[in-house]
C-alpha cells in the first residue's frame, strides 16, 4: 500500500515539474479535464496523435529547409501547422520556439530559421521523452488513478 502511495506521489511530482519547468501549460490541464472513465486514455491518445503529426510536420520542415532558395512563406505555413498542434496539447516551450522560427521567417532570415529549427526539434524531443516517461509511470499504477490528479 505504501509503495503505491509512493508511486502516486512520484507521478504527481513528475507532473507538477512539467508545469513548473514550463514544458506544459494550462491547455494540458484542459485535456486532463476532458478525460473521464468513459475515455480514460484521452490525454495519451491526443498526445500520441501529436507525436504522429509532429513527425510529419518536422520532416516536411526539414525538407523545406534543404531547398535553395528558401521559400519563407511555405516554411511559415508549415511551422504554423506544427505550432497549432503544439498549442493544442499545451506544449509551452515547443510553442515558444515555433514563434521564434516564424519571426525569422517573417524577417526572411535563413540562418535564424535554421538555428531556431534545431531548437524546435530539441524542445520537441525533450518534451516527448518526458511525456513518454510520465505516461509509462501512470500506466503502471492503472488508468483510473491518473484521472484523479492533485493540483
Amino acid at each position, binding site marked *: 500500500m505504501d509503495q503505491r502511495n509512493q508511486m502516486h506521489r512520484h507521478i504527481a511530482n513528475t507532473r507538477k515539474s512539467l508545469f513548473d519547468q514550463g514544458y506544459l501549460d494550462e491547455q494540458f490541464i484542459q485535456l486532463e479535464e*476532458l478525460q473521464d472513465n468513459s475515455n480514460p486514455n484521452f490525454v495519451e491518445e*491526443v498526445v500520441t*496523435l501529436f507525436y504522429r503529426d509532429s513527425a510529419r510536420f518536422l520532416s516536411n520542415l526539414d525538407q523545406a529547409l534543404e531547398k535553395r532558395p528558401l521559400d519563407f512563406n511555405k516554411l511559415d505555413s508549415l511551422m*504554423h*501547422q506544427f505550432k*497549432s498542434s503544439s498549442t*493544442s496539447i499545451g506544449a509551452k516551450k515547443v510553442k515558444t520556439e515555433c514563434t521564434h522560427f516564424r519571426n525569422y521567417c517573417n524577417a526572411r532570415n535563413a540562418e535564424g530559421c535554421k538555428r531556431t529549427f534545431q531548437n524546435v526539434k530539441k524542445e520537441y524531443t525533450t518534451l516527448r521523452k518526458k511525456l513518454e516517461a510520465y505516461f509509462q509511470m501512470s500506466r503502471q499504477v492503472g488508468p483510473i488513478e491518473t484521472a484523479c490528479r492533485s493540483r
Partner: protein
Amino acid sequence: MEAAKELHVLAVDDSNIDRKLIEKLLKVSSFKVTVVDSGSRALEYLRLDDDTCSSRFDDLKVNLIITDYSMPGMTGYELLKKIKNSSTLKEIPVVIMSSENILTRIDRCLEEGAEDYLLKPVKLSDVTRLKDTILNTKNRLPRSCHMNASMSPPVSPAPKLC
C-alpha cells in the same frame, strides 16, 4: 420540445488533433457531433443532409457549424461565405475558430455573418456558450422581416456578437 433534443454541430478542421479535441469538447457539452476535415467535405455533408432532409429528418439537421479558419483548399472564411450565400444553408449559424488574434480577420468574419470568432485553443466554456449562440439565432427575426405599426417589437434579446 426543442430544448430537450440534442443540438447537432458540424465541426470542420484539417488538424487531426484539433478535430479530436473539438469533438470531445462538443460531446462533453451534450451536442451531437459530426466532424469533417475540410470545407468541401462540410458542404458535401450539408448538401447531402439537405437533400434527404424533410420535416421527418429533423434529427439530422445541423444546428451550428464550427470551423477552423486556416485550412488548405477552402479556408473557413470561404466556407462561411458559401454558406451565407446559399439560400438553403444561410440560416445555419457559423462560428469561426482561429489561433490568430487578427482584428481585421475577426471583423471580416463577423461582417460576413459569423456568429462568433473563437481563439484557439478552444475551451470548454467557449463550447458550452454555443448553445446560447444557437438559441439567439433562433430567436432572431429573419433579416427580410418588416414590422408594420400594429406589431410590437420582439421581446427576445438582441443577438450577442462576442
